């Protein structure tokens, strides 16, 4: 965990105090809603359908047990007893009252958290690989670089009013688990042919109304130039990005309209002016940041025989071992995916008690922290394999043991029209019906990994464009309908899903998903052919035929 220094702490303390005054003036009628709105948005406070919504930043998804307990307290004392994990590895509260928000920000500041830059046209929370720091294929832990970006971008005066919001992701592994290709800037830690450490920089990815896969603008950037190069990209975007139409204002549109060569040339020219400025990183500065992470010390342990452990009469525990473990680079340890998606809960929702249970688990078995994953689950990254039974027993006690990680019921789902002011259709009730329909775990395991991602509107908070199965809620003359798309993936071979055909009604959409799954299950070449492989081989036609017939 990164530990704040006095400057970090002072920033969040002063920001909380500043917002307290702004809230007092709003409640006293001294400032109007139009004056207050940009102030509250800069502190992550939105107005949704039924109430305010507060979005709390979780830098690169990392949460300590103390922070989990604070989030639980907020859920219990200032909300309706639950919190919601988002696809930006953040936390949202759906029911805070305005006068309580300064108290919430004080509580967050006391555990080194805040809601700064979780809204507005600024640089948002930088995300990363949930396996950062423990992945065997990792060149270097990306989180210190995420933290450098966080510090550089926090209150950056030049980038507080960009044409649109701006999202950055960093991965240090060869396998992309951070979805860098669907971010405004994606950063991959790489080595060049001379063995020097640096970054590959991708720009112009994003979902929303006009999805784009990011393009490489620089295949190798020496590590010391990370911030100056990011500054150059942001400057080119800030100066030339479109402000006349919010739907064309993201950097992906600029890169697409200009072409990547022109964009890269403009960045290189700008970078030439600032590359040796004060933003140049030294190894000492990187080491200083790394030093504040207090890397956990691992015991020398043997690897357990997990296959033998799975030979148990408890089929759900065996399934959990099969589906919810992720490899750890240190022998004797494993990472655990804790699914927030049992069949009767909104994906991403966790209760105050569950948050406290997670905090206790992290302290007892997880070296004191967890990671919020961009698929709305929680990862315990540092569990001794020998503790798996004990951890599972606690997870089972708190209904956090669902063994569906990576399966089709491990859905990404935005809040949708049940909460969101922008949504056109509900997504949570559809997710619940999908979870109810596909509750045969043997069937899900037979299907293997299939990602299902659902958004209640074109803004794509549920990442539907990059779901193997994507569902987009739309409004057809005041009635909810759902477009089905197939073939999306955010990984190394990133692809955008294609719409299969006419939209389905709310009553039809779960049957349509069932038809898609059955089509794959009956027509795949073998059990080893994944859903995505099948789609990439066979295309949309077999699905169209199953869904709509031949006419």
């Amino acid at each position, binding site marked *: 965990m990164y530990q704040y220094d006095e400057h970090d702490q002072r920033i969040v303390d002063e920001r909380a105090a500043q917002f307290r005054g702004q809230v007092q003036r*709003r*409640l006293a*009628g001294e400032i*109007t*809603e139009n004056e207050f709105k940009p102030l509250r948005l800069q502190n992550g406070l939105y*107005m*949704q*359908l*039924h*109430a*305010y919504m507060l979005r709390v930043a979780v830098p690169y998804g990392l949460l300590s047990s103390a922070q989990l307990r604070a989030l639980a307290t907020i859920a219990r004392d200032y909300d*309706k*007893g*639950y919190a919601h994990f988002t696809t930006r590895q953040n936390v949202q509260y759906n029911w805070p*009252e*305005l*006068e309580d928000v300064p108290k919430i920000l004080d509580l967050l500041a006391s555990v080194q958290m805040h809601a700064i830059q979780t809204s507005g046209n600024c640089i948002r929370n930088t995300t990363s690989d949930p396996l950062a720091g423990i992945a065997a294929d990792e060149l270097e832990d990306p989180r210190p670089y995420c933290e450098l970006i966080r510090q550089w971008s926090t209150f950056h005066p030049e980038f507080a009013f960009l044409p649109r919001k701006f999202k950055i992701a960093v991965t240090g592994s060869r396998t992309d688990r951070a979805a860098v290709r669907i971010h405004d800037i994606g950063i991959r830690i790489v080595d060049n042919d001379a063995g020097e450490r640096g970054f590959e920089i991708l720009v112009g990815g994003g979902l929303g109304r006009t999805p784009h896969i990011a393009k490489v603008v620089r295949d190798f950037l020496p590590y010391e130039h990370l911030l100056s190069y990011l500054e150059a990209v942001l400057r080119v975007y800030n100066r030339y990005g479109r402000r006349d139409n919010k739907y064309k204002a993201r950097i992906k549109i600029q890169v697409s309209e200009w072409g990547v060569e022109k964009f890269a040339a403009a960045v290189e020219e700008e970078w030439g002016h600032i590359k040796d400025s004060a933003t140049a990183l030294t190894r000492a500065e990187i080491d200083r940041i790394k030093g504040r992470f207090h890397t956990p010390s691992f015991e020398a342990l043997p690897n357990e025989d997990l296959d033998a452990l799975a030979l148990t009469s408890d089929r759900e525990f065996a399934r959990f071992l099969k589906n919810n473990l992720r490899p750890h680079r240190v022998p004797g340890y494993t990472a655990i995916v804790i699914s927030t998606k049992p069949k*009767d*809960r*909104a994906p991403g*929702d966790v*209760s105050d*008690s*569950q948050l406290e*249970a997670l905090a206790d688990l992290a302290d007892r078995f997880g070296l004191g922290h967890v990671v919020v994953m961009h698929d709305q689950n929680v990862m315990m990254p540092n569990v001794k394999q020998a503790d798996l039974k004990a951890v599972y027993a606690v997870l089972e*006690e*708190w*209904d956090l043991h669902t063994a569906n990680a990576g399966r089709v019921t491990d859905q990404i789902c935005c809040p949708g*029209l*049940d*909460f969101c002011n922008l*949504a056109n*259709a*509900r997504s*949570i*009730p559809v997710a*619940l019906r999908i979870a109810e329909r596909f509750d045969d775990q043997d069937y899900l395991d037979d299907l293997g990994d299939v990602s299902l991602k659902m958004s209640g509107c074109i803004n794509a908070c549920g990442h539907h464009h990059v779901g193997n199965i994507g569902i987009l809620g739309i*409004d057809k003359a*005041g*009635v*909810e309908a759902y477009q089905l798309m197939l073939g999306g993936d955010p990984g190394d071979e990133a692809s955008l899903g294609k719409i299969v055909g006419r939209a389905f009604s709310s009553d039809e959409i779960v049957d349509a998903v069932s038809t898609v799954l059955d089509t794959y299950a009956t027509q795949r070449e073998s059990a080893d052919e994944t859903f995505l492989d099948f789609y990439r081989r066979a295309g949309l036609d077999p699905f169209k035929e199953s869904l709509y017939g031949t006419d």
Partner: protein
Amino acid sequence: MSDQTLAVARSFGSHFVITANTTDAGAPVYLRPDRTWSASLTDAHAVGSEDERDDLLSHAQTQEHDVCDPYAFKVNVEAGAAVATTTRERIRSQGPTSPLRRPDAAQG
């Protein structure tokens, strides 16, 4: 086109009502005939003409100490009460359609 007309949400129906969110809790409220605010859509003053709508909306826009971002939307009137005609306004007036928080298993 006036700003007030622009503030009318996309909806359909025979009448208009005025809504906003409260400043303290952000909860949806509806303008009553006596020009106070109610949490219930059935209490809303449903008016049939654009002139009445614009008059009510103008009044609502002077109440920004108590409410935020008032707007008008169309409703039908059934048994003397306003009834939302879109899913959005129906959910907004009645609350989320999905359960908010299950009892925790470990709490019995």
